[in-house]
């Protein structure tokens, strides 16, 4: 199975880990699987579970499949205003 590269930009509390992170996942991984891999890369950081992955247009559902390299963002719970 081929690998793809996921580039994840950090926001809010995730900025403790820097600006972004690149890591490989198998092509065809679901968003849920990408989140699990991200959590591993961040030493099990619990906030990943309450956060969502998004592109610049929308939040991605857990069941969505990623076939190609992707630039995503991890969004922790929000508190604007």
């Amino acid at each position, binding site marked *: 199975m081929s690998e793809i590269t996921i580039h994840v930009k950090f926001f*809010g*509390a995730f900025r403790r880990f820097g600006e972004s992170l690149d890591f490989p996942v198998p092509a065809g991984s679901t968003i849920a699987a990408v989140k699990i891999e991200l959590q591993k890369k961040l030493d099990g950081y619990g906030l990943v579970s309450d956060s*969502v992955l998004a592109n*610049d247009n929308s939040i991605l559902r857990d069941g969505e499949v990623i076939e190609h390299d992707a630039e995503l963002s991890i969004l922790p719970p929000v508190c604007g205003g």
Partner: protein
Amino acid sequence: MSAATHVSISTETLNIQDAYDFVTDPAHGAVDVFIGAVRNHHEGQDVQGIAYDVHEALAEGVLAEICQEARQRWGGIKIYISHYKGQLDIGGISLIIAVSSAHRAESFDACRYLIEELKKRAPVWKQEHYEHGPSEWLPGHSLKVGTHG
């Protein structure tokens, strides 16, 4: 964005007059304005300031979506929303929402709807800086599907 809606994320000082000028309309007899400002305390701690982090592209889309919802519920209103991105001291303006309408009820109701939905859905985060102790990112509303209804 329509002529009746303005949405922006700004790193410049937010300007109340800009909001008023955008929504004012000869057919509208009411303008309601909500201003978010940095306060000097939070849960017993003395706050020095707040840093606002924003996913700009997604935030502008979410705010436009919320404005569209409001205009569907309260037809004919004009809306201005601008959210600040960056560091603010005490008293700094983090958010301006202005709504105008023919009569006051629509403006009040729509303005309340817009701020409540923004707080639940817009990808914005606050890092509070305290007089004593380390800075903290504030908890908030999860964007997981089904958790912000």
